[in-house]
């Protein structure tokens, strides 16, 4: 079906039409057939070679012997008490410790749940300004990385197992020979680093050996195209009425994503129809999480963003902006956005993306200056990372020096440059010319393979350290468990090179902060309590900081916006930053644009061996277990690629040629992508990762060059005629044509608040039921999900997986709709496939219907209601008829078709939540509203006599949500947040016309579109 035909079909639909995928729009018979099966793709058919007769025989025998299984004696179990029990441990109760996850140099503050020495679940640190209780995807899933059985376990030298002391003597010998020549030929390669104690160690080393050089490379963070911006902006989205993003995915990627989502969502969670919704303009080449939230979205090539920014700056009268005008087709859009920004001086903000060159950042800064936003909605600061700011330039220099034979000793501390370095640098070949190569990392990966020494790195949950969050706050990393393997952290390696081996990471970090207490460090840190008092001594300070997880007085950057004179506190570089817009724009690029993006789940491949992340559907495309190339529908049509797949299955494979290199990738037509652009995700195709990550997907680093790590022209694509099976959950569990999402315009909603109600079918009266009405006298649990706040990031799914011991099923099973996620995030598009006018996300957990259709069909009463309105699922009663799932209109029940839970890998046993049953084969499961958390709170409330407070019980999804879109509470408490949310006019239930009376309800999307740009 062609784009024109789809458009005709869309035009023929009445009312507002939402669609989930291009397949749904094209509505082919294959797709309808796919959709109408409860578990499509022969999910329930027996396809084993054993054959039907043998199967029946076995089933007959199983049935006959089923009763006997109940008579087996339970296996003997052991109880192993402590020899000396630590004082604070109460067996059966978890302890929580504050720590932080370093990623791309920045810290993500966390609270780790610890069950008798086993970290099992990570939550955001609610007191930390960079988290406020929320987490990102990697914070939720990194606990699985700790227990990854494929982590490297031993120190290896040339393929032989060695001890730490052997490494220490080898390093000391190397350093000894380098000291007389001031470290000539010694190079360090790290990721971006903000850790104060580690920086001190590095500077000590570089101070003693001035000829040594420090390089930085991280394929995702700090890799620059067109130079690094001189200053680091911090945005205050809670104060911004109008936001304009220039290829900036501030809600989806980066160190500030949690805080930015919280701040942004706070301007979307309106409580009354009169509430002011902020307005978001997004200019970007490919649909991102941020782009999907936009009120107005303009898809242009990444290389055109600079021209757009220049034209906008000129329209806004920004100082030093080159005179530029936009092409006619976007002139109206630009003029409307410019007028809107001008009308909101001091309450607007222009955001430039990290993948854009420094010139665009300078233009954004100039615009913010012109709009009077600096100091109000954005503040500019000196960059936090101490390492070289421009990773691309840094690794290019290193590679050139290695090729030239100038490097004798190279220490790679974290990272996998052999896999991730730009292809034109030929990093692997260069590396082989270095006479001593050492590598520290969690995995024995592609780089370790080419190094003389490999030292297993400690996971952040087993090491001491410190790190700064995106806002500058110093967070402390404390271990939750002693190293599982023979691991060491980077700071310990530096201590060895500085000639002080034997010092543990804890000694080094604690020593640094003890000296910081008495101002003996450079820089001198302010050491105060949160309310500005001094600590009695260094020990009190250390203990407080460890307890809180951060040093309160270093939280200066975010709060400085409120402080008077914040604008004058700009770093010295600001004058040059202001002059920068006059710089020449990036060299003109021609031809089809190729865009490089990190995979949203595995980034540059560092999380490739994490099953939770692999199985999590990626935003928008909902692809799992693979990387694909995104193109727009028009581009697809131009190249003769079908824009909708047949059924839900195979994808065309295209060959992408760029600078004489070719890669073959399955193609994915993503609505909203700019035309004549091909988007390539890197991070897949790992050659040496682990049992999960090795060999899946396609390695696209081979195309990425140091000249253009993010975007370039001159790409070509060609349909190969091959097909490849890509699994996407986008079409799974569809609720066809029933307006599951509702979106209204802010102005219309203000005029007529009842408009949301009118968008759905009428709900039958409460009296319409055959069953006696049940009075919920005690608690009455309910949930409200604000679709206007939800960004569709999928953190809720990851949190649910971690909390509820949800199994990973693998690509083949996902393809059969057998993914076990209790919560899914549906994405709906509105409008033309080439440029959707709206993209909406809807998290769908079990709706906990009061008149649940699943309960009445269960022949063994394995799913029944409890007195608090929860739809209980009793695993030990379930016999696996799947009638319940068949009768569920929301399609939220998941069945263990096979034995998905891993009962055998010892490492994973330690990760599991002891409060939730691990489900076996043949059992149905679903969202329980985290009943284990409800039970704990209820028991504690009964013990203490204190009633359960609103907000005391948080479901895992609610706790993790960076946008606070999910709220859980007691519907019998008139003061609870959830009751107040459900009283809003934009509250509606999903498929309420079926009389299911869902306890989970949704708050409709309220968009604040610019009347000038609104399409009629």
């Amino acid at each position, binding site marked *: 079906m062609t784009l024109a035909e789809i458009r005709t079909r869309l035009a023929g639909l009445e009312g507002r039409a939402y669609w989930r995928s291009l397949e749904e729009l094209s509505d082919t018979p294959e797709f309808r057939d796919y959709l109408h099966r409860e578990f499509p793709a022969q999910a329930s058919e027996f396809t084993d070679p054993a054959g039907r007769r043998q199967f029946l025989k076995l089933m007959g025998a199983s049935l006959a012997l089923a009763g006997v299984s109940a008579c087996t004696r339970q296996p003997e179990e052991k109880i192993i008490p402590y020899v000396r029990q630590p004082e604070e441990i109460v067996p059966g109760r978890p302890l929580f410790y504050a720590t932080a996850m370093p990623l791309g140099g920045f810290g993500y503050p966390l609270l780790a749940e610890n069950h008798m020495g086993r970290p099992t679940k990570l939550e955001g640190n609610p007191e930390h300004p960079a988290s406020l209780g929320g987490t990102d995807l990697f914070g939720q899933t990194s606990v699985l990385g700790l227990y990854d059985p494929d982590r490297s376990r031993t120190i290896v030298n040339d393929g032989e197992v060695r001890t730490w002391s052997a490494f220490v003597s080898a390093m000391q010998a190397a350093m000894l020979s380098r000291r007389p020549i001031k470290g000539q030929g010694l190079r360090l390669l790290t990721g971006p680093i903000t850790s104060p104690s580690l920086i001190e160690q590095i500077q000590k080393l570089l101070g003693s050996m001035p000829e040594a050089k420090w390089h930085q490379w991280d394929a995702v963070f700090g890799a620059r195209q067109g130079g690094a911006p001189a200053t680091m902006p911090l945005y205050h989205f809670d104060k911004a009425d109008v936001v304009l993003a220039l290829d900036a995915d501030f809600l989806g990627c980066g160190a500030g994503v949690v805080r930015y989502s919280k701040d942004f969502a706070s301007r979307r969670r309106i409580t009354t129809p009169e509430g002011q919704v902020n307005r978001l303009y997004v200019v970007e080449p490919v649909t991102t999480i941020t782009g999907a939230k936009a009120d107005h979205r303009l898809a242009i090539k990444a290389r055109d963003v600079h021209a757009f920014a220049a034209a906008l700056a000129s329209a806004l009268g920004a100082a030093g902006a080159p005179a530029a005008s936009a092409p006619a087709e976007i002139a109206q859009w630009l003029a409307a956005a410019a007028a809107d920004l001008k009308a909101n001086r001091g309450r607007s903000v222009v955001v430039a993306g990290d993948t854009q060159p420094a010139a665009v950042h300078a233009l954004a800064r100039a615009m913010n200056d012109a709009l009077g936003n600096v100091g109000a909605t954005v503040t500019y600061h000196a960059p936090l990372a101490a390492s070289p700011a421009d990773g691309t330039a840094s690794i290019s220099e290193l590679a050139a020096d290695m090729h030239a034979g100038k490097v004798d000793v190279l220490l790679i501390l974290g990272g996998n440059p052999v896999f991730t370095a730009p292809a034109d640098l030929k990093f692997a070949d260069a590396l082989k010319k270095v006479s001593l190569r050492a590598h520290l990392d969690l995995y024995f990966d592609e780089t370790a393979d080419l190094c003389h020494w490999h030292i297993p790195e400690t996971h952040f949950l087993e090491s001491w350290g410190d790190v700064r969050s995106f806002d500058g706050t110093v967070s402390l990393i404390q271990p939750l468990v002693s190293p599982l393997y023979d691991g060491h952290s980077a700071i310990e390696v530096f201590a060895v090179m500085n000639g002080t081996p034997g010092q543990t990471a804890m000694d080094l970090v604690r020593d640094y902060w003890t000296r910081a207490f008495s101002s003996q460090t450079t820089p001198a840190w302010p050491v105060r309590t949160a309310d500005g008092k001094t600590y009695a001594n260094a020990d009190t300070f250390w203990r407080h900081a460890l307890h809180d997880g951060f040093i309160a007085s270093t939280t200066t950057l975010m709060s400085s916006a409120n402080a008077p004179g914040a604008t004058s506190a700009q770093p010295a570089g600001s004058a040059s930053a202001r002059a920068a817009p006059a710089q020449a724009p990036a060299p003109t690029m021609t031809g089809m644009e190729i865009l490089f993006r990190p995979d949203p789940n595995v980034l540059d491949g560092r999380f490739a061996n994490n099953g939770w992340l692999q199985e999590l559907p990626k935003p928008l495309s909902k692809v799992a277990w693979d990387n694909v190339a995104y193109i727009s529908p028009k581009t697809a049509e131009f190249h003769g690629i079908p824009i909708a797949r047949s059924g839900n299955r195979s994808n065309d494979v295209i060959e992408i040629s760029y600078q004489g290199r070719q890669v073959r990738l399955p193609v994915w037509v993503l609505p909203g992508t700019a035309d004549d652009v091909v988007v390539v995700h890197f991070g897949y195709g790992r050659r040496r990762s682990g049992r999960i990550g090795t060999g899946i997907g396609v390695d696209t680093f081979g195309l990425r060059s140091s000249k253009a790590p993010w975007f370039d022209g001159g790409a070509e694509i060609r349909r190969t005629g091959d097909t490849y099976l890509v699994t996407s959950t986008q079409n799974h569990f569809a609720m066809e044509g029933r307006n599951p999402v509702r979106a209204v315009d802010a102005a219309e909603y203000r005029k007529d608040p009842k408009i949301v109600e009118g968008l759905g079918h009428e709900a039958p009266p409460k009296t319409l039921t055959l069953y006696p009405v049940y009075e919920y006298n005690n608690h009455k649990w309910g949930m409200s999900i604000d679709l206007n706040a939800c960004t569709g990031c999928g953190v809720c799914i990851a949190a649910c997986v971690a909390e509820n011991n949800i199994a990973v099923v693998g690509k083949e099973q996902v393809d059969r709709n057998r993914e076990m996620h209790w919560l899914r995030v549906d994405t709906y598009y509105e409008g033309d496939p080439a440029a959707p006018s709206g993209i909406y996300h809807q998290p769908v957990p079990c709706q906990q219907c009061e008149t649940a259709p699943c309960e009445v069909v269960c022949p063994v009463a394995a799913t029944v209601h409890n007195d608090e309105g*929860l739809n209980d699922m009793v695993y030990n009663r379930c016999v696996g008829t799947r009638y319940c799932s068949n009768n569920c209109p929301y399609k939220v029940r998941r069945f263990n078709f096979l034995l998905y839970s891993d009962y055998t890998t010892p490492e994973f046993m330690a990760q599991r939540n002891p409060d939730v049953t691990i489900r076996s084969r043949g059992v149905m499961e679903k969202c329980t509203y985290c009943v284990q958390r409800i039970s704990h709170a209820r028991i504690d409330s009964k013990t203490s006599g204190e009633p359960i407070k609103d907000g005391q019980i948080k479901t895992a999804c609610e706790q993790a949500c960076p946008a606070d879109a999910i709220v859980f509470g007691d519907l019998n408490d008139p003061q609870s947040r959830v009751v107040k949310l459900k009283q809003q006019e934009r509250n509606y239930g999903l498929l309420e016309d079926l009389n299911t009376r869902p306890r989970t309800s949704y708050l409709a999307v309220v968009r604040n579109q610019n009347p000038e740009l609104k399409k009629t």
Partner: protein
Amino acid sequence: MSQIFPRSANALARASLASVLGLILVGGWIVFTLMRSSWVTKQHEFVEQPVQFSHAHHVGGVGLDCRYCHTSVEKSSFAGIPPTKTGMNCHSQLWTNAAILEPVRASFRNDTPLSWTRVHDLPDFVYFNHQIHVRQGVGCATCHGNVDKMPLMYQAQPLLMEWCLDCHRAPEKYLRPREQVFNMAYQPPRGDTPVEFGGERYTSQQALGLALKKEYNISGIAHMTSCSVCHR
């Protein structure tokens, strides 16, 4: 044509029908009984332990409170098994050379924990919580029996779900005042031995149980028999 079967065959047919029915009933009865038998439930079974610890001596004889060893019974789902250190509190002074205590000393010396075998073992899909039971007036002896009279520990009750539900449906049958929970010698009220609670003397368990249920704010049958109270 003459009949193949004589008239007497009818009786045989009836008998075989009856015996099939009988077999099903007997089979059912066997499964039913077997499931409740102590062979399956492990009720009254002694368990080999690394140290043959006597509750009769420590509780009945010495008079230790349950909570001296089972420290977390009031604050956690798990009552807690004492660390080796708890044993050594006394046995570094008393019976310091007793052969029976050698595993305890060895554990303390070598810093290797003792490995006990669970006596009361619920299936893993049952989430029993000691804290709330102790708090709501369920005595230790109600489920664990009179451990003060057990030289070796055994499971006093069947721990079947029907046994749990017996109390969850009507807790008044078993409740006792909170201050009597750890009292091994406590006797439910009878005509001649009344129990005092809240300034009143109760002579029947039913009356006392109902008073306690009200005072302790114990949930009704709808909540107490909800699946997710124990299973999740």
